[in-house]
């Protein structure tokens, strides 16, 4: 305030009353919404560049060592991976429904769909944990304990290094996403959203969809190398 005092949220404070979610450096909710949305899209572009570096490394070595890539990919559990893909696509659906509910002001439905999305996200992470556990038990974790039969072993170790790097970074993004969801769900539970303002739900949705899309790239790149003649 110009005289140095601070008004409590919601109290009249020196200009016409406005939506409680409007921040003071913005002129109106519309400007705030446009700015926030642009910000989230820009952030997702940075994420594309982030994953892009790893995918570049992956692509280079796949071209150089196709045999090793096929051998390594065979070792991944295509059932668990496929299941996780369906789980994640499903969670994008539930997220979209959550956004839709927020848009129409269906508060309880919003909370419900958000919880469902979180549950699916957690399911993904639990399955991932079991996949990693299997890799550990088979000595496929790169490092001094790595074991793989055959002359391609060193190259297969690179495959698994990139597998863990890619899925690990993705899983980290999932964990952050689930955390974000819990915050948004709490806000929805406390009836903070309305058809007039539900930007956090939209932005969380954008982030969640992005993490899903990354997996949709990772699944075929990692699990489906040269599976045409051996599904199992």
């Amino acid at each position, binding site marked *: 305030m110009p005289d140095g005092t601070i008004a409590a949220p919601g109290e009249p404070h020196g200009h016409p009353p406005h939506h409680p979610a409007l921040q003071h450096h913005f002129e109106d909710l519309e400007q705030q919404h446009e700015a926030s949305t642009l910000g989230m899209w820009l952030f997702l572009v940075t994420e594309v560049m982030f994953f892009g570096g790893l995918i570049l490394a992956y692509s280079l070595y796949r071209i*150089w*060592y196709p*045999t090793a890539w096929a051998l390594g990919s065979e070792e991944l559990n295509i059932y668990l991976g496929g299941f996780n893909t369906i789980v994640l696509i499903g969670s994008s659906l539930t997220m979209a429904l959550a956004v839709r509910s927020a848009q129409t002001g269906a508060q309880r439905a919003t909370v419900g769909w958000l919880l469902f999305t979180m549950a699916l996200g957690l399911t993904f992470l639990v399955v991932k944990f079991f996949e990693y556990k299997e890799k550990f038990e088979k000595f496929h974790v790169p490092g001094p304990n790595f074991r793989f039969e055959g*002359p*391609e072993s*060193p190259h297969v170790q690179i495959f698994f290094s990139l597998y863990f790097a890619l899925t690990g970074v993705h899983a980290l993004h999932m964990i952050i996403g689930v955390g974000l969801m819990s915050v948004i769900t709490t806000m929805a539970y406390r009836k903070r959203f309305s058809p007039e303002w539900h930007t956090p739900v939209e932005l969380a949705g954008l982030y969640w969809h992005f993490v899903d899309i990354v997996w949709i790239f990772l699944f075929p790149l990692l699990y489906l190398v040269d599976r045409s003649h051996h599904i199992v």
Partner: protein
Amino acid sequence: MLFGFPLFPTQASTLAPEIDNLYLGVIAITAFFAIIVVVCVIFFAIKYRDHTGDKVGAPITGSVPLELGWSFIPFVISIGIFVWASVVFFHLVRAPDQTLDIYSTGKRWMWRFQHIDGQREINELHVPVGRAVRVVFTSEDVLHDLFIPAFRVKADAVPGRYSAIWFEATKVGEYHLFCAEYCGTNHSGMIGTVYVMEPADYQAWLAGGGAINSGGSMADRGAQLFTQLACVTCHLGDGSGRGPSLVGVFGSTITLNDGTNVVADESYLRESILTSQAKTVAGYQQLMPTFQGLVNENDVASLIEYIKSMQQGAARSASAQAAP
């Protein structure tokens, strides 16, 4: 030289004058533009000085012809420099067909040079004047870089692959050899000397007047390894074995089993020995074991020299004794 102070390293190779001329040319061009700008800035700053800060400058906003002019002209000049520099570059990276080959390995923190007749040097490199020399090298640990300022040549030594530089020395003398890619504690100690010698002196050096010889040429050692490691069981000379014949393979174009062609240079041979499964020759099974970990860099180089010597009929004379 400026006041007796050197501005250039000695020009001790055939390419050094080319590079120095390019350097002087670029200096001339860039200095020309730099001087114009500096003179203008100083002149305008003084001529249009206003001590009060109250006056206002002329309402000039720009000039499209001027903008196009000073975009286009520098661009054209840049193309000129680019073309000139690229021509010089291709001279630097394309070795002549006939070269005296020397193998080298960098490792922390020394350079080992291996002559094909068996002489071995550490941090010193003896070469004859007036003959094209090619150094094929790699690293055994981290990145290094072989740099000989007097010859104006440089290339990184990358572990896992071969690099090469070539030069033809024009002046007898001793010249610095540096490692130019940071490699740890003693990076600045990984230096040496190149000794360029008259041909007669060089022959004398090779014959034992200073050279340490491990006994036998590289090709001889390669022949021993070829038997010891059982290469000979598959790579029969008449092509009837499980592996292709290696007679005349060096420098030839090979078709791989994925249809692509590759030139069988040192890098290809090295890769085939160490990690054979990557590039299998068309018509053959992928049966060759990998020798990574079973042979060291010197062994690989010796095998390559032996393979090079396998020409139809007499051995290819890559020995230092023969004049080009």
